[in-house]
């Protein structure tokens, strides 16, 4: 009887969390979409703000991390860009578009790092 009650509570908890997760993803999606709109208009700082909000709301949203990395790259914040790309790759390791962005980023970043290492 007690076991049945516990199973019931667990079931309700799972069912209750699902809409909450869906809400979070939906909020994050609207932030990402708005970020894309403003980035296309050249407002990269606003885009960064939106995508930072998106990853706060949903830390498993690979696209938001990818976009954030692109924006950091555009702003010259290369360390932050690397971290964001790595996070995006960690969440979605098989996403070819994220991988392609990351490879292009690495080409620039590795070059500047090599230059810094020279005496």
């Amino acid at each position: 009887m007690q076991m049945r009650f516990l199973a019931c509570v667990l079931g309700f908890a799972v069912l209750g969390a699902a809409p909450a997760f869906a809400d979070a993803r939906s909020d994050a999606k609207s932030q990402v979409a708005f970020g894309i709109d403003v980035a296309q208009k050249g407002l990269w700082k606003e885009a960064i703000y939106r995508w930072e909000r998106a990853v706060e709301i949903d830390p498993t949203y690979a696209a938001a991390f990818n976009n954030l990395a692109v924006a950091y790259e555009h702003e010259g914040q290369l360390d932050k860009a690397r971290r964001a790309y790595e996070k995006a790759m960690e969440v979605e390791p098989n996403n070819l578009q994220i991988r392609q962005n990351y490879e292009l980023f690495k080409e620039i970043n590795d070059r500047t790092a090599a230059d810094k290492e020279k005496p």
Partner: protein
Amino acid sequence: MTGPLPTRKSHRRLIALSAAALAATVMACGPVSYEIPIETPIQPKLDVTPFQRVLIAGFVAGGTDDVDTNQETVRLLRSQLRSKSSLRVIDADVMPLLEIAQEQSRATGTAVADASSATARESGAPQNVSDRDPKAAGQGLALPQKIREEKDLEPYERLFANTAYWKRIGEEYQNPLIVTGTVLFTPQSRSGFVSRDVEQYDSFGRRRVIPTRTYMERKGFMLRPKFVFIDGRSGATMYSESYREEVLYNAQQSTPALSSYFELMDRLVPNFLSTLSSQKIRGTRVLLK
């Protein structure tokens, strides 16, 4: 008799409606990826904030006689810096560093010789030049008159370590950032197998590109510059960077040395500029929904 027909019709209509609904949904959702151009700013490798002016002094240059590499390098770098850097470029005569280094070397040699003959007089040893310690006499000498290959440049390196000399130059031009170094521009010829794409058409007229290996004799040039950045206030070297670029053409093709020189310098100039001023690297990335 007429029974099955409406059923098939309604089935088709259902498929059509589903397809339309799916298309409408896709249209409403919009694309999931957007290609966007970006410009990544790259910080300069050297902190040039203490300087307002830059002196491209001159280069110890060698290799082919077809191009005055010292003059051309100074002229090119000055014009690039004028348009792509915030530093004011000093217009001054190009320094003949090869001759300057040789003069410095002769002066050092004479000083060494004088010192060693004075020592010899005091000790009663023979004063003949040939009797002198060749190592001591040779110190500062042994600069090749003509620079043909890389090892000829090595003895000239000490010119850039002569802080007193560069400090004096710095004082003369009110303490600018001084850019100098060595440039070697040499002809190259090489023969061997080269992979090339060859177009072929089959009997149906279809075009195919087949990679084939052919033996070729090729001629061209190699450019090896080393840029040395000197603090005009102290005469000390702040930073130096070496590059190597090569271009080879078919042996039958006749390309003037000067155009090859510019072709190779074109590849290096962005790297040179990125030492002194921030650069923007253009590219495209994909934003995702």
